[in-house]
């Protein structure tokens, strides 16, 4: 059965197909590389985390500073993801369905956070809202805390995660064109009905994919958050920052226990991503066969 399949592939590929041993070698190298650099560290995280047993693992997670870090991380993601979801859909809608002057500039702008180092993203906010920054004195006068507090962390995270959803949706929406929306309008649907009944069902897998990536990054962001957080224990530390602190204090088991939360998040992300990517390919393929 397997031999038959291989045979078929070989015939189909014709002259460009490499000999079997070359293919096996290439696959082995790729798998070996993945095992060494991705799977092994992931496994190490969990073994280290559980080294001192379940009790110690759970105790490390129940530590008040850690719980506060988890809470802050969840709050940050809970604010960032919906906001970026809204901005992402609006931006993708504008770019994919309308033509207007400055469109390519907008696309470049959306990509900006990808090209800027996260540390710089954090510094931008310190520069604007910090005590020595432009708005710092005014903010201090009115007793509003942004830098070294949750708002700064949220702002920096929004900046860093901004492109994820928009970038996912733009090619998807462009591939689908405008005709279905136009058909809905001629049938009497208003803007909201058109969005929720026609546009949204066509892009929902893309949205889920974008949200998952955005969420993973929002929870895992280190650089930008590190600059604006101030590392106040039990107050302005997120999970990645808490991991760093624990690690620097040589409490390895606790550090890895907290890190395992992020690793788990990564695994869930990977699973959802695989499913939604598959669904999205189906949608795009369907869009293309209809053209």
């Amino acid at each position, binding site marked *: 059965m397997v031999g038959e399949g291989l045979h078929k592939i070989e015939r189909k590929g014709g002259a460009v197909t490499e000999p079997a041993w070359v293919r096996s070698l290439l696959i082995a190298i790729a798998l070996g590389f993945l095992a060494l650099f991705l799977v092994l560290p992931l496994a190490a995280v969990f073994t280290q985390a559980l080294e001192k047993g379940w009790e110690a693992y759970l105790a490390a997670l129940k530590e008040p500073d850690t719980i506060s870090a988890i809470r802050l991380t969840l709050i940050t993601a809970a604010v960032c993801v919906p906001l970026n979801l809204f901005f992402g859909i609006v931006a993708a809608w504008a770019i994919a369905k309308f033509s207007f002057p400055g469109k390519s500039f907008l696309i470049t702008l959306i990509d900006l956070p990808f090209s800027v180092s996260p540390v710089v993203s954090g510094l931008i906010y310190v520069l604007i809202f910090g005590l020595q920054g432009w708005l710092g004195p005014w903010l201090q006068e009115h007793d509003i805390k942004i830098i070294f507090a949750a708002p700064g962390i949220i702002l920096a995270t929004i900046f860093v995660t901004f492109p994820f959803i928009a970038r996912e949706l733009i090619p998807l929406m462009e591939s689908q064109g405008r*005709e*279905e929306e*136009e*058909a*809905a*309008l*001629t*049938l*009497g*649907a*208003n803007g909201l*009905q058109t969005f929720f*009944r*026609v546009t949204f*069902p*066509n892009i929902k897998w893309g949205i889920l994919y974008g949200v998952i990536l955005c969420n993973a990054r929002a929870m895992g962001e280190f650089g930008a958050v590190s600059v604006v957080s101030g590392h106040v224990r039990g107050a302005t530390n997120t999970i990645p920052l808490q991991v760093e602190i624990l690690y620097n204090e040589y409490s390895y088991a606790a550090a890895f226990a907290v890190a395992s939360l992020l690793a788990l998040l990564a695994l869930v992300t990977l699973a959802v991503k695989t499913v939604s990517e598959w669904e999205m390919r189906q949608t795009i393929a*369907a*869009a293309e*066969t*209809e*053209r």
Partner: protein
Amino acid sequence: MSIEIEAVSKSFGTFAALKDVSLKVPSGELVALLGPSGSGKTSLLRIIAGLESPDSGRILFDGEEATRRQVQERQVGFVFQHYALFRHMTVFDNIAFGLTVKPRKSRPGKQEIRDRVHNLLKLIQLENLADRYPAQLSGGQRQRVALARALAVEPQVLLLDEPFGALDAKVRLELRRWLRRLHDEIHVTSVFVTHDQEEALEVADRIVVMNGGRIEQQGTPSEVYDRPATPFVYDFLGSVNLFHGRVHEGTAQMAGFRVSSPENASAHDAPAVGYVRSHDIAIERDNAGSGGIKAEVRYLLSVGAMVRADLALNDGDRSIEAELPREEAERLKLKVGDHVYARPRKMRVFVEDYQI
């Protein structure tokens, strides 16, 4: 509902899609906008639908200003070339869509929606496919669903953008005859865009021939076909042969023969082009009636009931195409290489435009 288009212009960037177009579509008629791609026909259709807005000019529905009316308020049914069915909805839900998005006050009840959709499914002969998704249908079926979806909201006007453009020849033929019968039943004012002259001639009550953002001619199919108003219409509708010559006070002198051309009575020795349709060229063995041009049969091609003959004119450097019934060709015993006389039965002479 009647549609009036008054002096509408529309540009996309530097491209002028419509230049000062005026048109009246009487209530209940089926009108074809016919023209090559880029002639502005689709832009005009989209402006009527409200999917584009004109740069200048007005649109009137039943004599009422509708230029600024929103798409949703225009009560038009629009059928897209690529169907634009909602891919995530079943055939039933696609057709029901227009009814289910109505404001609660005017929305029909569930049972009524179901009945209406089933009547439409019966009309398009797809009753057993209500639960299928668009991807599971053939092109012709999809287009019929698109039509039913547009009809579900009982539009005042039905607009169809190249409705059969993406279908294969046989389905196309069936579907356009079906559309004609459907229109005879429901009499909704309809405008459809096509680049296929045969389709326009067969289906439409009136044809509007468009070119370069302007209307070249409008009229019934026979008017447009038999009495083309401009060289463009002649060229575009049916295959045509060109003769060059000069026209002087109502008589055209072409290479090898002369014809009278009363519509050019005021011309003074002007360069002219004569247009003759392939089926208006008679082939004869002898030059009894005179006015024939000596020609040699170069190719013969049987197309169904007709025979197409490629004739090399006596000067040798030009050829014309004649189309004659098969019996006629058999009676003449036409063979490749025969020497015959070609006589234009009907020729339309246009004084040549110096702009070209």
